[in-house]
């Protein structure tokens, strides 16, 4: 009898888990499908494209982890904000300023410390830079009700201009590198150690994963995490319950910005080793897709980050092998975001969600129940 019940419970838990996974994979599959159709119509060799795109999961393992590193962090930045229903979508800007702050500290301040301490200082600088870049949007929102969805986007542009101006002007490099529109190189002692010799992924990946675990804990266990979940579910209730709503928004934005900023710092110390005047890898934007696919769950974001990291790495080989523009990867993320936001919007309107695969799961469940 008791065994029966626990078996049944496990089975319901398992199907529930399956349902969640299927629900999350649906937009991805849909995105792949749409991209396949588009490529087909434009005359590309679709099987070859997908082979090379997905092949990198195996052939370019370290490339995958290299890109997963920032994407996990921008994914977390998204998750923290979105869980509070604070729409920070300017992670690209906060990442740039994080990279700028990190780069500046790496070049001018960190050499004063021992290398290890230097790295720490640089990373703290990039965290702070990202947070500060999110602050104006937070203040505009709580003080004057300006929607952060607009201000954070506008701040991307400003960040990008600021970085270009500084790197081409005051921070311009001296030697041969200077000619190629970037700062000087960061001292080699501060470069993050690669996971394997001559491979692109570094210990930065471990940092990302550790941060994801911490954020997961933070959201689920800390007092602020509790406030975020209540506030994100029902703002009116939060104020009724005596929560300080403006302060919740500000803190959430600061953490979100800091995470994106950290991604920038790791890019500088781990991959670029200098600050170029432009680097538009759309990492913030990809972070939105990562987080949405993971249902804004920090642990899921680790997987999501690795997956989109693999696609990104695949995009590079893709261009070489099949002459398909690597933008395909961005298109996939964009479609994923569209599909998921459409679905959330649908929910918001109180409609039933459109379902493809989940119908299959339900039929399995029904059979099981019968």
């Amino acid at each position, binding site marked *: 009898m008791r065994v029966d019940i626990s078996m049944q419970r496990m089975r319901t838990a398992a199907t529930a888990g399956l349902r969640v996974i299927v629900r999350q994979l649906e937009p991805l599959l849909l995105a792949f499908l749409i991209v396949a159709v588009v490529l087909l119509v434009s005359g590309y060799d679709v099987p070859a494209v997908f082979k090379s795109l997905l092949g990198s999961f195996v052939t370019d393992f370290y490339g995958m982890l290299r890109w997963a590193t920032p994407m996990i962090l921008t994914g977390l930045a998204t998750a923290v904000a979105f869980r509070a229903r604070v729409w920070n979508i300017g992670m690209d800007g906060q990442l740039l300023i994080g990279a700028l702050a990190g780069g500046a500290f790496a070049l001018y301040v960190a050499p004063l410390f021992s290398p290890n301490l230097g790295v720490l200082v640089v990373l703290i600088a990039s965290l702070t830079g990202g947070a500060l870049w999110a602050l104006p949007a937070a203040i505009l929102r709580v003080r004057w009700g300006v929607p952060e969805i607009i201000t954070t986007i506008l701040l991307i542009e400003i960040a990008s201009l600021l970085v270009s101006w500084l790197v081409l002007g005051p921070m311009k490099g001296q030697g041969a590198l200077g000619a190629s529109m970037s700062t000087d190189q960061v001292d080699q002692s501060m470069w993050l150690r690669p996971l394997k010799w001559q491979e692109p992924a570094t210990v930065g990946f471990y940092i990302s994963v550790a941060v994801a675990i911490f954020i997961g804990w933070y959201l689920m266990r*800390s*007092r602020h995490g509790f406030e975020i*979940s209540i506030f994100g579910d029902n703002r009116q*209730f939060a104020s*009724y319950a005596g929560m300080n709503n403006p302060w919740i928004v500000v803190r959430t934005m600061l953490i979100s910005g800091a995470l994106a900023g950290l991604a920038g710092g790791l890019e500088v110390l781990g991959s670029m080793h200098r600050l170029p005047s432009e680097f538009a890898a759309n990492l913030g934007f990809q972070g939105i897709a990562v987080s949405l696919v993971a249902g804004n769950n920090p642990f899921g974001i680790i997987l999501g980050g690795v997956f989109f990291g693999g696609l990104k790495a695949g995009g590079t080989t893709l261009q070489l092998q099949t002459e398909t523009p690597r933008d395909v990867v961005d298109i996939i993320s964009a479609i994923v975001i569209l599909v998921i936001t459409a679905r959330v919007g649908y929910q918001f309107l109180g409609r039933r969600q459109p379902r493809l695969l989940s119908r299959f799961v339900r039929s399995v469940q029904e059979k099981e129940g019968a």
Partner: protein
Amino acid sequence: MTTLRVEMHQITKRYGDLTANDGIDLVVEPGTVHAIVGENGAGKSTLMNVLYGMVRPDLGSIDINGERVDLTGPHDAIRRGIGMVHQHFMLVPSLSVAENVIIGSAPTRGGLINRRQAREIVRRVSDEYGLQIDPDDRVGELPVGSQQRVEILKALYRGAELLILDEPTAVLTPQEAVELGRVMRQLTESGKSALFISHKLKEVMAVSDEITVMRRGRVTGRFSAGETDERALARTMVGREVMTTVAKAPAESGATVLEVRDLAANDDRGHQAVRGVSLSLCAGTITGIAGVEGNGQTELIECLAGLRPTLSGEVRLSGVEITGASPRRRRTLGMSHIPEDRLKRGLAPNRSVAENLVATTYRSASFTRFGVIRRAEVRSNAEEAIGRFGIAGRHDQPVAALSGGNMQKVVVARELAQDPDVVLIAQPTRGVDIGAIENIHREIVALRDRGAAVLLVSAELDEVMQLADDLYVMYEGRLVAQLDPTAVHENEIGMHMAGVTPGRSNAESMTGGDRAR
């Protein structure tokens, strides 16, 4: 004019896994008033919408005068003589009664609307059924009860022989409700019939010929009004014996806890909704505020709870001035609040029962240590509340998965947990099943007996009259009367609710915020 006999056979309507109507048979004879009663979610509205052609049933059929019909939409139902008055009126406030009545099906002459004829029709129909409506009145200026009669008139003008009314008395004062009952009776004299939904058993007993009781999508009883009583109806509705009155000892009033002087506040649109309210709440006393909804009660409570800015006036809680204080400060000073709209204001529906139960107290040392939530304590707190209040749900379930009554219990459990000194309670039993109402009433009385000062606002007159030790009536933002709930007659309260001051006792009535006592 032909009379209408409507038969519904085996009507079944499913929404996903939920069966809102499960094989329902219903016959409405011409010349009768037929009431449908049942708890929330019993499927009453669904059944009515099927009959009005707004919802297509999955199974079942409808016969009108013996002829099988397939209603394709409301226009089809109207064409066949079925009219419906919705809870939210569909009237144009800036137009006159006559204009509203003829919208969409106006008498015309040479392509022009014939206003004179329209007015005459309205006057004639109004006289015929005693609706007391002047065709030239502007609809927006009419009280709710009259607007409802305009809706009825509109349906009659379009040839309704069977009139469906979905919870028509929910928005009315007691007098208006009686008046509506009279109108329904009058309809039956000319062979028309009325089919109305209500959960107020008293009025159901008073006006109907036939009563059909529904529970969980099925018919659980059919009665003739002469052969049954409220108690039997309640039992059939709920499925068990229900106490309808609250046992309550006389209040032992203590010191004044909350003092409100000349309070004023706006509604959401910026119109003044609270106009100089003064009152004092004493420990161990339930102070009730009766009134038709929309007379400033909501705004008054929100203002006292710190959720709405105060325009002027002063509020003191245990001697401390809290006029502009934040909700959090008020809570620390011993105030708690059971809001009228629990889903909008009182709960985070997608969060767990346990989280909702600590949402106002999570900052305290018992639930947080070093900025970290103590999950074991949160959970045991929930389990205790679930046991004490009989919440049908688990601590880790999202609140949205509970029924309305259980959601309300979550709110009540949380708000009463801290042994508050002052509790603001608005519409505590709205949308709550009869079976659960009894429990909530008992909790409110128990709260009073523990020495709390309770402010109770309810649109259910019976509820305030039963619970309150001290009773006010609110009308257009003012407390227009202070009454003794044990001595006053319902009719007198009803007059105050409608803004009419009963001629005789001036000692009891008041104007503005000046207390006469």
